[in-house]
C-alpha cells in the first residue's frame, strides 16, 4: 500500500515540475546521449558503427511502450474512477506513443537495411509486433476522430485502448508462433555485452527519450487544455 502511495505521490510531484525545466532537461539529456552514442560508446565487434542506432532504437521502443501503457492506465482511470482528466491524458499518451512508434519503425528499418540489406525483415519479432501495434493504435485515432467530443467518445476510446493491453502479449505470442511456419531460420546475433560504457550510454539515451516524451506530453496537454478552455469561453461569449 505504501509503495502505491509513493508511486502516486511521485506522479503528482512529476506534474509540478515546470515545463521550461523539463524542456532544458530533455535538451541536455539528448545532447549528452548523442555525445555518448557517437563518441563514448565503443564500436561493436560484429556490426561495427551501425550498431550504434540500437541505443536510440531500443530506448525509443521502450518509451513508446511506456506511452501506450500510460494511455491504458488513463483509460482504466476513466472507466473505473471517472476521472475527468483521464480521457485527455490517455489520448495524449497514445499520441506520443504513435510518434515514438513511427520512429521505432524508421530506426528499425534503417538498421535492417544496413544489417541484412532489406528495409523490412519479417523475422524481427519486436519490429513485427510493433507494426501490429502501430496499426492498432492508428485505428484508435480513426475511432476517436470519427466521434463527437463527449462521454461516448471518451468511453469508446478508453475501451479500445484497454484492448491494446490484451493485444500486446497475445500478438507477441502469435508472432513467436508464426515463426515456426513462416521462418524456420532464426537470425541469431551475438548481441552487445551489456556493461561499462555501453550500459551507461544506453541508460543515458533511455533517460533522454523518456524525459523528451514526457516534455512533449506536457506541451501537448497544455495546448489541448488551452484549446478546450478557449472553446468553452467562445461558447459563453457567443
Amino acid at each position, binding site marked *: 500500500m505504501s509503495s502505491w502511495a509513493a508511486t502516486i505521490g511521485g506522479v503528482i510531484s512529476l506534474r509540478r515540475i515546470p515545463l521550461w525545466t523539463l524542456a532544458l532537461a530533455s535538451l541536455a539529456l539528448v545532447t549528452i546521449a548523442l555525445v555518448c552514442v557517437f563518441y563514448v560508446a565503443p564500436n561493436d565487434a560484429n556490426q561495427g558503427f551501425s550498431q550504434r542506432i540500437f541505443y536510440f532504437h531500443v530506448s525509443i521502443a521502450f518509451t513508446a511502450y511506456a506511452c501506450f501503457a500510460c494511455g491504458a492506465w488513463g483509460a482504466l482511470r476513466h*472507466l473505473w474512477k471517472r476521472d475527468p482528466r483521464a480521457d485527455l491524458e490517455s489520448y495524449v499518451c497514445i499520441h506520443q506513443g504513435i510518434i515514438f512508434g513511427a520512429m521505432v519503425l524508421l530506426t528499425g528499418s534503417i538498421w535492417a537495411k544496413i544489417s541484412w540489406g532489406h528495409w523490412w525483415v519479417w523475422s524481427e519479432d519486436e519490429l513485427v509486433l510493433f507494426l*501490429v*501495434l502501430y*496499426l*492498432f493504435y*492508428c*485505428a484508435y485515432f*480513426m*475511432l476517436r476522430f*470519427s*466521434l463527437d467530443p*463527449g*462521454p*461516448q467518445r471518451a*468511453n*469508446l476510446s*478508453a*475501451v*479500445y485502448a*484497454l*484492448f491494446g493491453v*490484451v*493485444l500486446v502479449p*497475445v*500478438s507477441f*505470442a*502469435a*508472432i513467436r*508462433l*508464426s515463426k*515456426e*511456419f513462416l521462418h524456420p531460420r532464426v537470425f541469431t546475433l551475438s548481441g552487445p555485452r551489456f556493461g561499462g560504457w555501453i550500459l551507461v550510454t544506453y541508460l543515458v539515451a533511455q533517460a533522454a527519450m523518456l524525459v523528451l516524451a514526457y516534455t512533449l506530453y506536457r506541451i501537448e496537454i497544455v495546448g489541448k487544455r488551452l484549446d478546450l478552455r478557449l472553446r468553452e469561453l467562445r461558447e459563453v461569449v457567443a
Partner: protein
Amino acid sequence: MSYFRDVGALARKDLLLELRARDTLPAMLLFVAAVFVIFHFALPGEPSRLETTGFLWVAILFTALLGLGRAFVPEREQRTLDGLVLAPCDRSAIWLAKSLATLAFLAAAEVVALPLYALFFHHVGGATVLAVALADVGICAVGTFLGAMAVVTRARDLLLPLLFLPLAIPIVVGSVGASVAHAPGKYLAFLALYDALFAVVCWGTFEYVVSE
C-alpha cells in the same frame, strides 16, 4: 439463469429477423463463392496447398467482416439499441446474443464455403475444421463488440475493418498454423486462449460501449 434466458431471447430475435428478411446470409454465401473464383484467377498456375490455405483464411475473415458489418445495422435503422439498453437485463447479454447470432450466420456460410474450397482447390483436414470453429468464436466475439463501437461513429461501415483487422492478426496466425502444421495442437490451444481472453474483456467492458 434469467441471464441466459435474456441472451436466448435476444439471439432468437436476430435469427428470426434474418429468417424473414434474408439480408446477411445470402450475401455472405455469394461473397465467399465469388472470392474463391477471384482466388483461382489471382493464383496463376497450380497453387500449392500452403498458398490456398492462406487464401482460405483471408476469405473466411472477409466473409466474417461482411456479416459483422451488418450485425448492428437493424439496431441502428430501427433505433432498437436504445430500447435494448433500457431493457432490464445485463448489457453484456446484448453483446453475447449478437455474437451468437453472428456466429450462427458465419458457421452457416462456412458449411457451404469449406466444401466449395475442397471442390475448387484442396481437401480440408480435420485440424482446419477445428481451427475454423475456434477462430469463429474469436472473430464473432471481438468483431461484434467492435461492430457495436463502429455503428455509433460517423464513419460507420468504414471503421469496422480498421478496428478489427489488427486484432484479427493473432487469429490468422493461430488458424493458418493449425491448418498447415504437422502438430496443430499448439495453435489450436492458442486460438482457444485468444477466444477466452477476448471474450472476458468484451463481456466485461461492453457496458461502457452502449451506455454513457
